[in-house]
């Protein structure tokens, strides 16, 4: 007799009772792990069908070669990077601005408590948010460079389009989390729809709004540094051309500049967010 087939009326010897999980759950857990391992092996084999292992075994010497070319970084290259860096900042900032302007109405249309129609408009707004979120800004940039040509504008629009989903999602969640009683109280005074939103809702979501915007700006600085790889302007263009000419010491300089910018923008955004909340 095992613990499994004991009826409720007859307790088995107590030493058999305590196990960490019920036998059924344990079995399911094991099956799950085995399935995961099998899936992993299967995927691994499919993925590496075309892998040339000669290149892989050769990698350490390649790595050594590249890093020896990267050091020392070519600091004389720095002045040339100032203009692209300014462009990168502009891509991020103007793109964030544009994204926010587009995201605010979408968020209000997507939030359950402010949408004019939960059946028609809300799904559309949600779809806008999902598609913007699932496509990386680099892919947006790739498309936009093809459509409106290389340059800053493509980068700005790409950042803006990517930001809609991020800002829209977090903002509409913040709108849905607002205290309904405050909104109800303003409604009860006989205020119009716009007034109810402005007095009852906006003060409640404003802190979240600033926080989200700063957060996204910080992410956008990071993302705009690489948009140049596909021709959308900024410091990434320099990165691309340095890689193309195998100027690894310039690449090292650019990476240092990018890292520095990211660290500065991160601390700045964290500081502003802390001051706001």
């Amino acid at each position, binding site marked *: 007799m095992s613990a499994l087939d004991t009826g409720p009326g007859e307790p088995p010897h107590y030493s058999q009772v305590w196990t960490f999980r019920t036998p059924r759950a344990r079995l399911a857990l094991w099956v799950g792990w085995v399935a995961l391992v099998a899936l992993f092996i299967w995927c691994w084999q499919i993925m590496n069908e075309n892998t040339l292992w000669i290149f892989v075994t050769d990698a350490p010497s390649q790595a050594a070669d590249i890093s020896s070319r990267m050091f020392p970084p070519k600091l004389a290259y720095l002045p040339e990077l100032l203009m692209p860096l300014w462009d990168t900042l502009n891509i991020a900032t103007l793109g964030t601005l544009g994204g926010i302007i587009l995201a605010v109405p979408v968020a209000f249309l997507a939030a359950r408590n402010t949408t004019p129609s939960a059946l028609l408009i809300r799904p559309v707004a949600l779809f806008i948010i999902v598609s913007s979120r699932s496509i990386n800004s680099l892919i947006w940039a790739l498309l936009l460079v093809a459509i409106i040509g290389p340059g800053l504008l493509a980068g700005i629009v790409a950042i803006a389009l990517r930001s809609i989903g991020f800002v829209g999602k977090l903002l509409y969640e913040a709108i849905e989390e607002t205290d309904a*009683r405050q909104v*109800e109280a303003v409604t009860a*005074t*006989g*205020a119009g729809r716009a007034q109810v939103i402005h007095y009852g809702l906006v003060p409640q979501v*404003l802190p979240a709004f600033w926080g989200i915007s700063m957060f996204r700006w910080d992410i956008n600085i990071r993302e705009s540094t690489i948009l140049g790889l596909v021709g959308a302007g900024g410091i990434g263009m320099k990165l691309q051309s340095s890689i193309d000419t195998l100027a690894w010491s310039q690449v090292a300089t650019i990476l240092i500049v990018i890292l520095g910018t990211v660290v500065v923008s991160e601390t700045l955004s964290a500081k502003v967010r802390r001051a706001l909340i």
Partner: protein
Amino acid sequence: MLTLNQLTKVYSVGDPALRDVTFRVPRGQVVGLIGPSGAGKSTLIRCINRLVEPSSGAIYLDETDLTCLGSRELRRARRRIGMIFQEYALVERLTVMENVLSGRLGYVPFWRSFTRRFPGHDIENAYRLLDRVGLLAHADKRADALSGGQRQRVGIARALAQEPELLLVDEPTASLDPKTSRQIMRLITEICAERQLPAIVNIHDVPLAQQFVDRLVGLRAGQMVFDDTPDRLDETMLSEIYGAEDWTAMDQEDDEPESSSDAQISLRLPGAAT
């Protein structure tokens, strides 16, 4: 004057929340609405300014039937009805002054409220009301910086800023301590007397209600089971409304916190020893 005629509310699931409620509130009368939770007190109050849509019946504020107004007229009607909320429902992140001025939203166009440029007499009036409720010094504080009692005073000032013809008061003393509760109830009844305002006060604290209101309406499962002056509410009636319970025990319990200082507060049950 407010007249409710066979007001009924049925939610999509479950029993009707209100069944054929009919009564009339003349000018200057403060009606206490009592009953167990879930009896429909809150629904009744919200049906009057249609924060909850009534299913059938009529609600007359003077001559207008509130149940059949379009959205524009409804907003005009709402600004004639001041509402005071459970747990204040102030917009926490706005200043006290903005909260009071938000009572004027129904009267000013959007651009004025958007730029916070309210007409001079509205502002003057708001200051007067803040003075009346004793908060003149706090006008520029943020609402979430105030204590519970102070917040409810702001709520009262907001409702009065509408220059209402009717006050709806939803559990004004929930989450306030006994002393502050009394002060708030006193303030509400004083103001109703000053302005000859009819008011419906939805309240769960029966002794407190008995002390301050002119008339009590008892609701049980959405139906009116009592409508009379507070001193006519006896133990049998309380059992009818709330279900059987030893009401003399409640009397003592309620007396404990400030028993000696405020003797007149105690439950004014005819049968109970006070």
